């Protein structure tokens, strides 16, 4: 069965005053109908940029190339920007991290929802207004009729995020991209929003790409996970597998640096060094300067994505079940 979203070899480069920055480096991604894919990474991993590129939201200084970029079988690379907008605006929706600034502060919440409906669904004014109230109820906003006339600054962060979600699902998209949807929210509101997202996802059989840096959120919500580092895809497999038996050293290091995995007051495991920037991209594996198990081969050669029974890992010596690299003496 063809995937709903198929991305092969996506590369995004930015022209900056200090040279070309490759924010996304030949990334592949597949999302099936109704699936929840978690994309995990830290800053500089390219997780947000890749999705913004898909949605056509990057600025003019970004150069996007891909071997394949297809949604529901349609090749997006052959469409004009206008056609792409029409397709993407309706069937693919995106919600962002900062709910209060993602909404237009000059217009009421109702106006913004109705605008989205008008663009993609048509219908009469009354129908649109009723649908807006319906959507606000669906996302759990109390007193939706009155709330239509509220401005974003009059609502809390959690409420605004619900409004964003309402706008996103207004046109019944087949794919929802959620870029750090709960990072800016309090933990109790986070839980509410995540529960709302998973409920909506199940009810409408909507595929979801959940971008986050929070591994725990991903483990609870996603079926498959992709780990990104410095613009590259370094590991992908099912969520259960990733969290019990990560194969890429970066994933393993990331998991072990969580405070939950350390004893109280003990020193936390850390990953020394920094994510490579513009001028210091390693010749070999991008993670090799920071990897505990790096060899000369790792430092000189770029690994490809290698298939193992459960997924893919970009490593010459992926970790085995005991957490040590295969093929390297203990």
């Amino acid at each position, binding site marked *: 069965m063809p995937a709903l979203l198929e991305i092969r070899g996506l590369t995004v480069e930015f022209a900056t*005053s200090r040279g070309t920055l490759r924010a996304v480096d030949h990334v592949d991604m597949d999302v099936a109908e109704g699936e929840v894919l978690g994309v995990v990474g830290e800053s500089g991993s390219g997780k947000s940029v890749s999705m913004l590129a898909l949605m056509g939201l990057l600025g003019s200084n970004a150069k996007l190339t891909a071997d394949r970029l297809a949604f529901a079988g349609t090749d997006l690379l052959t469409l004009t920007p206008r056609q792409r907008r029409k397709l993407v605006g309706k069937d693919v929706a995106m919600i962002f991290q900062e709910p209060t600034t993602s909404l237009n502060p000059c217009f009421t919440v109702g106006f913004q929802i109705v605008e989205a409906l008008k663009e993609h669904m048509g219908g009469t004014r009354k129908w649109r207004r009723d649908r807006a109230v319906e959507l606000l109820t669906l996302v759990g906003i109390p007193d939706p009729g009155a709330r239509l006339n509220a401005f974003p600054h009059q609502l809390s962060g959690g409420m605004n995020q619900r409004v964003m979600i309402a706008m996103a699902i207004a046109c019944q998209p087949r794919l929802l991209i959620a870029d750090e949807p709960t990072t800016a929210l309090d933990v109790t509101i986070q839980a509410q929003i995540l529960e709302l997202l998973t409920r909506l996802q199940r009810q409408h059989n909507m595929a979801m790409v959940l971008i986050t840096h929070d591994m725990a959120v991903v483990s609870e919500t996603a079926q498959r996970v992709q780990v990104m580092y410095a613009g590259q895809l370094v590991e992908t497999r099912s969520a259960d597998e990733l969290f019990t038996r990560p194969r890429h050293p970066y994933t393993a290091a990331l998991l072990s640096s969580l405070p939950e995995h350390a004893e109280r007051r003990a020193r936390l*495991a*850390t990953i*020394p*060094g920094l994510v490579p*920037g513009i*001028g210091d991209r390693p010749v070999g594996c991008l993670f090799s300067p920071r990897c505990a198990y790096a060899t000369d081969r790792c430092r000189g050669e770029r690994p490809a994505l290698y298939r193992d029974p459960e997924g893919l890992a970009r490593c010459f010596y992926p970790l085995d079940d005991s957490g040590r690299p295969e093929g390297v003496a203990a």
Partner: protein
Amino acid sequence: MSEAAATPTPQTEPVSAPLTPAREVWLHFRQNKGAMVGMYFIVCLVLTAILADVLAPHSPIVQFREALLVPPAWQEGGSWRFILGTDDIGRDILSRLIYGARLSMIIGFIVVFLSLGFGVVLGLTAAFARGTVEILIMRLMDIMLALPSLLLAIVIVAILGPGLFNAMIAVSIVSLPHFTRLARASAMSELTREYVSSARIAGAGTLRLMFRTVLPNCMAPLIVQATLGFSNAILDAAALGFLGLGAQPPTPEWGTMLAGSLQFVQRAWWVVTFPGLAILLTVLAFNLMGDGLRDALDPKLKR
């Protein structure tokens, strides 16, 4: 995987040579062709002003009785002795323009120095003091802004008496509100930033906070306004001179030169045109440079 000692050893540094904020601004500025042209023009102007004594072929006030209204050298009747011609009482226009450049630079510097200096102090005080002090200062500025600037300048000069120095004071006063408002707005937005709280926690008193902590971060819009203010000052002083309220004859100030020569527009176009052209080009150059500065300083602000 634990760190080695306290220093994470394989720490990759930013590779490019450390750029001071000033160098970064210069790199951005350089990319703007118009701004660079403006800058070169101004540099030439400043050099002209400094080297006026050497460059000018004649004295600006000496009258050559035998050479009244001589046309420019390339026209019929002109001579290379007076390259741009002479005015109605025989003074060499080129020399007057060159010395006028010196005057214009002085006017610009003094006006900007005074209005920027006082404007910053007033604006910062308003931002820090809040309450009644702020209200007083800002409403005073509002009153000044409500009056047409040239009218206000005329009134001030009328009180102080005509003359170049009084014209400069008048123009400084008229430019003051712009700097005050900018300084206050900038300072107010910087005051919410955490580095100000950080300085307070270090024990910084109000004066230090105002001038050492906050002011350096407000400089961007102030520098742009100062550049544009320079040309405004020249223009306003020229307007006052044109009205007879600024520099008095025989001072070779460009505006005053224009004032005395309108009647010759048809007979001797060069007497009017060259001072006007000088004003035009100078103002244009400053505006181009000011725009370039604004763009160059903006990405820094966004950081």
